[in-house]
């Protein structure tokens, strides 16, 4: 009995700490969503009244809309390239087990561990030196490097869980290499590709430390424009655009949950 009571007490105490932690985690985000609906001219919380004026304002503010297009183009183009390069690499590394493959996997995932600001600076120097300079192409290349590890990691995670039996059966039954990839492997790894691509898109949309180096009127992404806006003005339009951006991320998150399951993300490999 005493032991049970002790356990209940522990459960309540830890539950309380967890609850407080989530208040800490979520509250600042809720504040921004609330501020985006304010009717006031200035940022304040709690808000004075309800209005959608700041959402109108961001639609009318050209730099936000222009940079949103740049952001979307870069996110999708870089993710497409990362999928084309990363998926075959992940498939190969999962089925080929050796000391070398372990190092190659570490290499493919290593952009994740690099300080983004270093990567951004390095790519700017280098791409300028080889003549690409500040351009949409440069931006897409930079984002591809950042997105590749996400694709490789999720696809490898899914493929590792798929037993090779089906492929072997297909070989014995005389399927060609292409048929096996098309009809056996691809259906197996589809959730991994979707989840990895969604991740890569979301990470690209919110990337500031790399995009920042490639900022120019025609190549500034949304976070870069938001940062420079925030450095000069402090009004609720930043809250409004953040809310929109968060909505996009939430949709992405639901897609990942559908295809892949968020629980798998909790366990690093």
């Amino acid at each position, binding site marked *: 009995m005493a032991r049970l009571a002790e356990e209940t007490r522990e459960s309540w105490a830890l*539950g309380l700490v967890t609850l407080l932690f989530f208040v800490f985690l979520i509250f600042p985000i809720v504040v921004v969503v609330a501020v985006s609906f304010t009717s006031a001219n200035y940022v304040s919380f709690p808000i004075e009244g309800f209005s959608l004026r700041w959402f109108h304002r961001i639609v009318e503010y050209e730099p936000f809309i222009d940079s949103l297009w740049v952001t979307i183009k870069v996110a999708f183009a870089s993710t497409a390239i990362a999928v084309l390069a990363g998926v075959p690499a992940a498939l190969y590394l999962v089925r080929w087990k050796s000391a070398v493959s372990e190092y190659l996997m570490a290499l493919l995932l*290593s952009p994740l*561990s690099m*300080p983004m600001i270093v*990567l951004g600076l390095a790519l700017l120097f280098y791409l300028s030196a080889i003549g690409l300079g500040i351009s949409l192409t440069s931006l897409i290349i930079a984002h591809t490097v950042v997105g590749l590890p996400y694709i490789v990691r999720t696809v490898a995670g899914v493929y590792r869980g798929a037993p090779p039996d089906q492929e072997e059966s297909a070989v014995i039954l005389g399927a060609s290499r292409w048929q096996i990839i098309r009809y056996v492997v691809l259906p197996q790894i589809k959730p991994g590709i979707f989840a990895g691509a969604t991740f890569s898109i979301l990470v690209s949309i919110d990337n500031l430390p790399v995009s920042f180096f490639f900022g120019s009127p025609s190549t500034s992404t949304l976070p870069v424009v938001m*940062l420079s806006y925030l450095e000069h003005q402090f009004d609720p339009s930043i809250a409004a655009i*953040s809310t929109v951006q968060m909505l996009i991320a939430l949709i992405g998150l639901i897609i990942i949950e559908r295809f892949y399951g*968020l629980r798998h993300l909790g366990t690093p490999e």
Partner: protein
Amino acid sequence: MSGKNAELETMASTIGARAAVRPWRLMGFGYIIPSLLLLAAFFIAPLWFVGEMSLREGRLPPPGGGLWQNYERLFLDSFYFGVIGETVVLSLVVTLICILMGYPVAYFMVRHASARLYNLIIFFLIAPLLTPIIMRTFGWQVLLARRGLINEGLMSMDLISKPLSLLNSPVAVVLGLVHVLAPFMILSIASVLSGIDRRLEESARMLGASRGKTFLKITLPLSMDGLGTGAILVFMLANGSFVTLLLLGGGSLQTLPLLIYQQFNTTRDLPFAAAMSIVLLVLALVCLFFQLRLIRRKGA
């Protein structure tokens, strides 16, 4: 009949032999080449290029500056050396707070939460990771402002008589970084905690150890791998973070990423910025080395 058997046997042995000599492989080495080329051209080469650039003459060459002049300036000038120190100390403080805050949460979600609550917690840990970084910083700016909710709250409780300048202070930076990084810590600890064999704890309890002692002698040591992985990850990310520092620190703290940003934006001393990048890179590589060792150990 025997002919059929022999045929099957030959077939089986061929398949077997092939598997023994070299397992059948769907993917050839060619499959990995695009990725390797991509990284060689746009990841390794740029980093190499920065390394080379860091050895060029900077804008402010110290007297008699040689090949390593930018690094000499970075490590011998007390201001710049202080910046490196501040970067590391800040990351250590943030990591420590993340451990202290994150462990109880991870423990709760693995040991006390129902399956549904567990999934809900995972969702609420990951969702903030995907909310825009500017949004989270902006939230703290609103809360910590002079007339913000926190100052007003403290004043209405008569804890303070006039508003504290919370914004643009180290406190704001630490809050902002812990807010961004704590989920990584919790996820790392939780994944290891959920793999611990509970019978070990049960045995300790049955042999008479108290709850506290069981935790300290059994659970905590067994979860050290998760703690280590999380700590390295948080430390690494804190070292490289710059948006939080820029918007919440307001110059009250100087760290390497912030200094790189300034060198690039205003001073335009590119070789010196390159040298700072290399120092930050080496810090990251050291972290990566320990991380790989931990993962290797877990796998063994």
